[in-house]
């Protein structure tokens, strides 16, 4: 199996170009972007983030249709090439959510309600889940819990984290049976199947689905 770090830069850049075109998105470097530098200062000052650097280096942030990333696309580093693929699909699901509910309502929900923010992130984490399954051929029992625990960095309660875990655990059997529920996951996997099938788990490729 090709290691995450050995995925070619051309594959990552091709994927980013496709998804940006599909979702009318733009990817920009996070460091140096005025809005992100200002947000980093505010979030660190009010202690929502532990430091400016954590916000600028550890998180991808989408504002409107612009995705601010803390990595050079296609360059393996703190963010592996596979993580760069997965995170863009995740962010494109947020753009799809905005298009579905309206940007204003989406932003309002995200900022004003911890429960709604958790639901919005759970839907986007389900994209990671679909891609993880496509790549690894399985959804490990720990996966929903570990993904959900990253929500602690989003200012939500323990009940919200448990909600995200259970949401992902509920999606997993469907994904394992070959069903896709997320918009961006479906788009991403269609592209990857065509352009990078060598990254797909053999068990996914060879699995006999119930209707096959």
């Amino acid at each position, binding site marked *: 199996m090709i290691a995450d770090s050995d995925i070619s830069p051309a594959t990552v850049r091709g994927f980013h170009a496709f998804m940006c075109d599909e979702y009318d998105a733009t990817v920009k470097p996070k460091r140096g972007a005025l809005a992100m530098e200002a947000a980093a200062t505010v979030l660190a000052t009010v202690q929502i983030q532990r430091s400016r650097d954590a916000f600028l280096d550890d998180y991808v942030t989408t504002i409107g249709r612009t995705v601010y990333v803390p990595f050079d696309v296609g360059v393996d580093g703190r963010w592996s090439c596979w993580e760069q693929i997965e995170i863009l699909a995740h962010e494109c699901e947020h753009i799809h959510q905005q298009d579905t509910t309206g940007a204003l309502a989406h932003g*309002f929900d995200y900022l*004003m*309600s*911890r*429960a709604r923010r*958790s*639901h919005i992130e759970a839907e986007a984490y389900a994209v990671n889940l679909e891609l993880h399954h496509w790549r690894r051929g399985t*959804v490990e*029992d*720990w*996966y*929903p*819990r570990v993904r959900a625990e990253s929500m602690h960095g989003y200012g939500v*309660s323990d*009940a*919200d984290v*448990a*909600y995200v*875990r*259970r*949401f*992902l*655990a*509920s*999606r*997993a*059997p*469907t994904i394992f*049976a*070959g*069903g*896709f*529920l997320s918009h961006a996951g*479906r788009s991403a996997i269609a592209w990857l199947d065509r352009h990078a099938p060598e990254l797909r788990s053999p068990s996914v490729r060879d699995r006999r*689905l*119930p*209707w096959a």
Partner: protein
Amino acid sequence: MTRGDLVVSLAVAFVLGWLCTGCPAPVCQTLASRCSGSRVELCDSRGQWTLVADCDALTSGGEWECGETVSAGETVIACLPEHP
């Protein structure tokens, strides 16, 4: 009424509207789940039913139905392939 009064009234109406819709009365126990027709629903931390999946909206493969199964070590409600 001046323009300033109008702006303040609208702002107050907006905040009150949000307060009314932002804290709805709980209708379910957090983390409870159910099948509602073809919909998989999960109760969030506000005690409100949310949509996890609509089995009728699944486009891949054959027919799907809402049902109970075990995932990640717990019993969950999910969209499952319909038995022939």
